[in-house]
């Protein structure tokens, strides 16, 4: 057994948080947090580079006995689906630290600790191959996120934090029962790989699918479980929004791929029409809500609902274009929306307003900033050449392959995206400088801010122009997943 690289990438941030316990100086706390997140990112790079994209098997596996009486093991491993999200989480980790450099002024050390603990939990979720371990990371995320929103958030932060906490907790406790039921149905094991190999009776699949689905649908969030999201996003500090949009939402869809689709193939087939309807409603409804917002952050928050609708749509069309598109869209949405929240955070630091009416003429006042803002908006609109185009195009191709109606409706959503993003862009960046928002006093980005934005912009274009290496990473895992799904689907069809 070689270096336990997954454990290192997971627990390095936690180590940083523990070291921060003994630090008193706010400046030192920032630098230490930055150092740990950057090193964590550097550890994540070889994982991606050394990843063997010819197999769907789990790689970098670590397997140790943990709680023998419950047959629980410390089991970590990644396949083509999780590897991207480990990379994304570690990338956004240091972006978050940079984004909070100046905007967090009180309790800096505690904030950085919460961020680092959060990062450990997030990466842990993507690595865990034992349900107990998975649930541990999954729930442990609630504590730091609750504090990040509630302590460092905006005016209405306490309401948003409690809503976030209770909503997510209520969803995931049912999943816990589902996990325990799986343990007994699957021969007394929490080993996810072992549990995937088995077939469960349909009635069992039905209920356990639901218990998992509710937890993940809340996290995504899918319509009609989305109401916590705008509150949480708007009130969270910039780094909190980046984490929420960048990684937390992906956990919902990751759970759907990893568990709902692979463990309960038949139930997944059964629920597909419902999920597709929910996705399409989410795409269009989220778009319309975004159209009506006067607060920039809220607008992007609602656009997330729409974009995540595309992801769930792609997942449940059962062809490789749809599923691969969905996974790419997850990655892209993480980068693009993370970047948009970063941009909003940066301008908010300067103007202290997020009202669209207070903006105008940013392009004249802060040209470098506006350039990047433009890039990310175009990416969010899925303009060809940017990353989101790949994902959205594949999803739409997949959706049309499965159902023309679903595809046609999602096109409306994609068009709505262009409408609300462009009209927002017009109000914010173009026109005369609006003195109400004190935009004329704003200074342009500094090196620290530029570093974060450049890093994200690189990925916007890299994936946009040359998506092949990324798709190759996920391809074997996705085709393996689809093979299993379609054989189960044929079985269902055959029985009927």
């Amino acid at each position: 057994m070689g270096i336990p690289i997954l454990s290192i990438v997971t627990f390095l941030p936690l180590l940083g948080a523990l070291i921060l316990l003994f630090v008193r100086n706010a400046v030192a706390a920032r630098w230490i947090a930055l150092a740990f997140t950057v090193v964590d990112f550097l550890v994540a790079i070889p994982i991606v580079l050394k990843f063997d994209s010819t197999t769907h098997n789990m790689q970098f596996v670590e397997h140790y006995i943990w709680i023998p009486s419950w047959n629980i093991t410390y089991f970590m491993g990644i396949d083509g689906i999780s590897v991207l999200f480990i990379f994304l989480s570690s990338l956004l980790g240091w972006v978050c630290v940079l984004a909070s450099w100046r905007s967090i002024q009180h309790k800096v050390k505690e904030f950085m600790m919460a961020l680092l603990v959060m990062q450990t939990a997030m990466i842990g979720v993507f690595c865990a191959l034992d349900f107990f371990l998975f649930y541990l990371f999954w729930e442990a995320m609630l504590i730091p996120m609750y504090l990040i929103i509630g302590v460092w958030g905006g005016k209405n932060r306490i309401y948003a934090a409690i809503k976030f906490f209770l909503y997510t907790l209520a969803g995931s406790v049912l999943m816990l029962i589902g996990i325990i039921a799986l343990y007994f149905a699957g021969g007394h094991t929490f080993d996810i790989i072992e549990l995937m190999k088995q077939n469960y009776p349909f009635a069992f699949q039905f209920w356990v699918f639901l218990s998992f689905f509710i937890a993940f649908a809340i996290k995504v969030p899918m319509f009609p479980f989305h109401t916590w999201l705008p509150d949480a996003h708007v009130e969270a500090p910039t780094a909190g929004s980046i984490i929420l949009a960048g990684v937390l939402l992906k956990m919902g869809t990751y759970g759907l791929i990893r568990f709902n689709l692979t463990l309960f193939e038949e139930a997944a087939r059964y629920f597909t029409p419902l999920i597709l309807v929910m996705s399409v409603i989410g795409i269009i409804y989220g778009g319309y809500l975004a159209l009506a917002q006067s607060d920039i952050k809220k607008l992007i928050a609602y656009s997330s609902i729409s974009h995540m609708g595309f992801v769930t749509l792609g997942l449940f069309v059962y062809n490789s274009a749809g599923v691969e598109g969905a996974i790419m869209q997850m990655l892209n949405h993480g980068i693009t929306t993370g970047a948009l929240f970063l941009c909003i955070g940066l301008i908010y630091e300067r103007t202290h307003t997020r009202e669209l009416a207070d903006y105008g003429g940013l392009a004249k006042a802060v040209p470098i900033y506006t350039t990047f803002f433009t890039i990310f908006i175009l990416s969010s609109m899925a303009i060809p050449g940017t990353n989101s185009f790949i994902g959205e195009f594949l999803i739409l191709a997949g959706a049309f392959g499965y159902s023309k109606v679903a595809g046609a409706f999602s096109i409306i959503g994609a068009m709505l995206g262009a409408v609300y993003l462009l009209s927002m862009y017009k109000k914010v960046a173009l026109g005369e400088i609006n003195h109400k928002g004190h935009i004329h006093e704003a200074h342009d980005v500094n090196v620290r801010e530029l570093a974060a934005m450049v890093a994200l912009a690189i990925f916007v274009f890299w994936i946009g122009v040359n998506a092949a290496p990324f798709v190759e990473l996920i391809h074997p895992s996705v085709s393996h997943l689809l093979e299993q799904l379609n054989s189960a689907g044929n079985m269902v069809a055959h029985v009927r």
Partner: protein
Amino acid sequence: MNFDISNIIFSMPEIIVLAGACLLLMFDLILPKGQKQAIAYVALAVVIIAGAETWLLSDNIAHIFNRMFMFDGYSIFFKFVFYIGTLLAILLSINYMKIEGEDYGEYYVLILFALSGMMIMASGTDLLSIYVGLELMALSIYILTGFTQRSGKSNEAAMKYIILGSFSSGVLLYGMSLIYGITGTTQLSDLALALKGQDNMDMSLILAVIFLVAGFGFKVAAVPFHMWAPDVYEGAPTSITAFMSVGPKAAAFAAILRIFIEALGPVAGSWETILALVAVLTMATGSIFALIQTNIKRMIAYSSIAHAGYALLGVVAGGRDGISSVMLYMLIYTLMNMGIFGLIIMMRKGDFRGENIHDYTGLAKTNKLAALLMLIFLFSLAGIPPTGGFVGKFYIFMALVGQGLIPLAVIAVIFSAVSAFFYIRIVMLMYMKEPTHKFDLATTPASGIAIAIALIGILIIGVLPSWFLEMAQRAAFPV
């Protein structure tokens, strides 16, 4: 009846505690006023010696005193839970009683008497010995509840507790006498034999079961026998609230498991539904009423009612997993409740009581460590990983699902999500609001040690529960 020396050997831990308590009573007489903390330290030593003795004997199993008293892994496990609870309670009491201005050696003596009562309950294998232990424990705690004589609330609490408590003891005795009437024995394993083949729906049996549920339900504050708990928890000196929120509850569960699963196991059909109903009501009432409390001691009272509900579900699940899940839960619950009470006790200084939840507003601003500890204990009580509270609940749910009682498990998780609200509300007050007054915590090395033990305990159980889990599983009595 032949008297065997093994009777003495295997009841040595109880003898040590009782003899220690009696000696301390005399020692108290020669100690001048103002020096009474010495009693506390000797009492600590007594508990530690009893613990060491239990540990030394722990390889043995002995059924002694005419099969009324069992020295086995099960009782040892519970005894250690009691030792931990008592040790932490004494450590937390030393400074607190000084602040309250009650300088009496009897306080620690009574705690030791209560401890011996609990130990007898855990070891009792006869309805009579269990009852004797229960009364010894209860009488001591009645007095302790009213120990702050000058406080009206404390007196009122003691009065309520003793009247309702005696009444419930009467009900319990009545149930036991009915059982004796049906079977002709009070010995638990003989009871199991006699009840084999008995009709589950026999009226007298059901009546007896209802009386037993009511009697023990009172001790663990299960709904609808919980009315006393909030008043008594609020009125009692906080160190005693801490002690009685864990010790008697664990002791009562030790007896409940033995009586219901061992003795009444053959007629499980007669009590399972009743107990399940009580458990659900207990969780619901505890979680929902805690939402509207503004006094933190009352809130913890309702929270401990809810926790009793989860543990009762473990009893309903039954089987080895049911038993060991309740055992583990009691250990974890003891640690986290003592931890939270340790912090509540620290708030009391001078004339400041620190019992309103708004007294905690902004604590994180000035006392970062205290707030962080409180946060960990609260999240543990709410059952959020990676804390011990999660492992405890997880095992109970496992036991339930393993028995196919999934609806009960679903109800339990829903209420555990509801109860999270009032725990995180305190976190919210501590972390997200600005302080309204200056904090001045009564920190002493003793209370620091107590909280550290509780903290290390719940974190270790939360992350590496294996050792404790196996301990509980090995110690569970065979069914």
